């Protein structure tokens, strides 16, 4: 019996500084954003994930619980964990945390590079404007 290919292939970067469970959550969020995971798709079982990636099963449990908490996924007893029907909107709001963290990190680096608060804000504004111009 050939096994069905899993809907998502997880990757783990142990040195990235991002907690492993967080990495899994973000990868699911990204997949939903890009449409690779759709409502009703089944997430790989904990056992399958552990076969794909060398990762603690508790971490997978925790990631799935977090996805359920965020409303992105739901567990069906005896069947597994599935993406909820309308995950798109929720995926978007869930990345705010990620964005905030990236911004904090950028801010720290900029300050370490010697930029003052004013210079920080100026740079950010400039980039936003340029980006805006590119989009329109």
């Amino acid at each position, binding site marked *: 019996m050939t096994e069905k290919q899993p809907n998502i292939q997880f990757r783990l970067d*142990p040195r990235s500084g991002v907690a492993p469970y967080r990495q899994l959550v973000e990868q699911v969020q990204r997949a939903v954003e890009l449409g690779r995971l759709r409502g009703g798709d089944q997430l790989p079982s904990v056992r399958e994930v552990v076969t794909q990636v060398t990762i603690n099963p508790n971490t997978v449990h925790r990631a799935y619980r977090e996805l359920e908490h965020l409303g992105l996924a739901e567990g069906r007893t005896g069947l597994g964990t599935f993406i909820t029907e309308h995950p798109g909107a929720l995926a978007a709001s869930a990345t705010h945390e990620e964005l905030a963290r990236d911004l904090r990190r950028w801010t720290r680096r900029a300050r370490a590079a010697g930029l003052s608060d004013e210079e920080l804000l100026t740079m950010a504004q400039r980039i936003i404007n340029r980006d805006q111009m590119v989009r329109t």
Partner: protein
Amino acid sequence: MTTPVLETHQLAKRFARTWALRDCTLSIPPGRVVALVGPNGAGKSTLLRMAAGLWRPTQGTIEVLGERADRENSALVGRIGYLDQERPVYQGFRVDELFRFGRATNPTWDMDAARAYVDQLGISLRDRVNNLSSGQQAQVALAMSLAKRPELLILDEPAAALDPVAREDLLRLLMREVAERRTSVILSTHALGDVASICDYLVILSRSRVVLADDLEFVGQSHRLLSASSTATPTLPDGVTVIGTRTSSREVTHLARTTLPLVDDGWQVSEPTLDEVILAYLRHETDHGVTPTHELDQVLRGEAS
């Protein structure tokens, strides 16, 4: 109240004049994959061998799965799967002979499982163990300890000296086992990457003492990097213990353990990576050990005597 998988109280071990382990007090909850980290000679193997019942403590007590590990206890030993750092091999034995020994000495031995493990790795039952590669030998040794279906695995540097593929295979086999049987694992390792990916509880040993013992989650939450300009360094906030410090011409950065929510007070606060935390503890020079997190919390909150 769940029984801890490993509970020690002021555990110590001395060889001649050297203390291999001192003042070791731990209470590790079940269901975790525990990373035991520390430099060579820090006492990791000593602790693990005492947990496996091979060495007797000089002082203090040690309980594993709720039972005394320093008394002869074959029932307890049956619930533990142990893999020694030196990976002893019975010279000239074939894999099936080793398994036969396992079956003869363990009532809970699952021979089908043992055969399945080695089969998946392409090892024949009729291979002689000392002719296998070191990666395969480690796998066979792990299969030996898994086949008796233990509640707790104690592994002393199981992936050491293995090539990257072999170590991936070994750790993945281990994680599958944890996923299927909810086995608790205590493994000692030098590979900090392992700690982040497969472990969820961290114990750091340095110079024969425990300097940190906590869930990885709380380690992340309770440690912060505090940075400030080196020319105008503010005072440290309350409830902060500095573990390590880095200075450059422009900046001072402390890695600190905190118990209270931090008030910025002129410091730039950020989250350290797990590697940074571990390395800071390992470099931290102290005369006395730093007490484990929960006790320190109590002290800082004024709760302990």
